[in-house]
């Protein structure tokens, strides 16, 4: 890109992409704020999902400690374990729904074609959706963490900054995943059910509400193939002092490698399906 356009050309190109991303992000923020009830529910609903987990933990606990759970996870603080899982799995939802499903939303609203015939990069159009959803997800998740901690008690003894830095490669990888999913949705055109299921399965098998070691071997193999599993494990180890499946440095290395892989693969999948849809004239079909 730099050699083709020169440094100045690359700078101009980059500025254009940021302008597109910013415009899309601003549009999505305004839509989000236009439905205040939905905005409020984005904080309230996760708390409602957390409450049954808390009470289920209490059902198996002795004096508030999940002693059986400690045998699997290395901590008897089941709720803090689940709270961190929910926090991180919200980013998986962002990849599937916020980025991947955004294409179908645009199709339904009839704005996909008008947006895509502009000179704006289509990758930037999709990335723009993910920027604001990542931001809103972070704000939501922090809100949920604060409310969850106040209601049920959360005990984070580790280094939060280290945990955030450890999580960053996973967020970038998930953006790549979302891009790839957007490409698939472009072709399939009605993917709500598949995205719903995939999102939930990936979240659960990554270890949102239980350590993956409880899974039977076939499912454990699937869980270990997900880069997010190592992300969850590493962040929990830093914040809660739980045992990791592999040495922490190895898990971080796996996440970094998968970040590069998922971004490249996601881009390739998106471009492939986008080319196919343009050739077949499917962009405007519903």
């Amino acid at each position, binding site marked *: 890109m730099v050699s083709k356009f020169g440094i100045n050309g690359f700078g101009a190109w980059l500025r254009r992409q940021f302008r597109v991303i910013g415009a899309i992000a601003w549009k999505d923020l305004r839509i989000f704020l236009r439905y205040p009830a939905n905005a409020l529910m984005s904080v309230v609903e996760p708390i409602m999902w957390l409450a049954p987990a808390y009470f289920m933990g209490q059902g198996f606990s002795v004096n508030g400690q999940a002693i059986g759970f400690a045998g699997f996870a290395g901590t008897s603080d089941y709720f803090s374990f689940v709270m961190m899982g929910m926090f991180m799995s919200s980013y998986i939802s962002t990849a599937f729904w916020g980025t991947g499903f955004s294409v179908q939303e645009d199709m339904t609203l009839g704005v996909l074609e008008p947006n895509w015939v502009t000179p704006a990069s289509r990758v930037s159009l999709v990335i723009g959706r993910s920027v604001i959803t990542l931001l809103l997800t972070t704000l939501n998740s922090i809100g949920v963490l604060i409310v969850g901690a106040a209601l049920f008690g959360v005990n984070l003894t580790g280094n939060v900054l280290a945990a955030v830095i450890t999580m960053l490669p996973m967020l970038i990888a998930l953006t790549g995943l979302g891009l790839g999913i957007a490409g698939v949705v472009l072709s399939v055109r009605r993917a709500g059910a*598949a995205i719903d299921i995939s999102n939930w399965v990936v979240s659960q098998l990554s270890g949102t*509400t239980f350590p993956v070691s409880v899974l039977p071997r076939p499912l454990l193999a699937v869980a270990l193939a997900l880069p997010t599993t190592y992300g969850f494990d590493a962040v929990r180890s830093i914040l809660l002092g739980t045992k990791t499946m592999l040495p922490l440095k190895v898990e971080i290395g796996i996440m970094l490698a998968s970040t590069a892989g998922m971004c490249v693969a996601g881009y390739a999948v998106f471009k492939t399906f986008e080319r196919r849809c343009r050739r077949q004239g499917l962009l405007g079909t519903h």
Partner: protein
Amino acid sequence: MSRTMPHTVRVFLAAARRDILITTRYADFVVSMLVWPVLMPSLTVFAAKALAGPDGSGLSAFAERTGTTDYVGFVFAGMVLWMWLNMVLWSVGGELRAEQRRGTLESNWMTPAPRLAMLLGSGLNQMIVSIVPVIASLAVCSIAWGVRFAVTPLVGLVFLVSTMAMFGMALAFASLVLFLKELNAAVFFLRGVFMVFCGLTSPLSVLPPWMRTVSKALPLTYSIDLVRRLGLAGASYADVSRDFWILTAFAAGLLIAGCLAFLFVDRAVKRSGTLGQY
């Protein structure tokens, strides 16, 4: 009167047929019907298994509170009924919202066809569609996890009465959609309330007293408890009669209230002229 009833039935069946055709036109409905009832309870059971511990040390605390060590059946009963409630809540109100978005609500409602019959026809489609996931879930629970639910006429009756109660709530929600123009937040909130207070995955004894009081005011609490006691613990009618009649009273009350709410809102929306507003 002699012409009204056949006319109403025709509208009811036409709406049901339309919705069944739409549902089956997109193959992903099969995925929803068969995959969720298997995935959601099963993955929740893994969380319970983790809590029980590799040595079962958490299981004794659970057994003391619930009277059973069968946490798989316990979790499945709660999750299946909650999923059923979820489907019913989305069905009727969601159908109205879908018609608003498609732009067919006003044109359908300008016809002389009884609106309640149209709504109930959509509900029939959802009832048929939602039975399949329940059967799938119970089958997986039995085959994959080895849990045996006693499927007796009384259990079937509990499901039927529970469905009536849920449908009454769904009718009330359909009314809300006409006012609020947006369904998601209301359904998320209500299903969240049921999730928190009805003992889906935990015994009610672990809830604080004020939450147990709220639980007693929710029909799903009785549905879940009845299915667990009848289907898993082998209780008889005599053991559960009180709670069964409480659930029946809920069902009757909610159905009547739902119909009345819908008719009231229908009239109000017509007067204000906001029916077609998106």
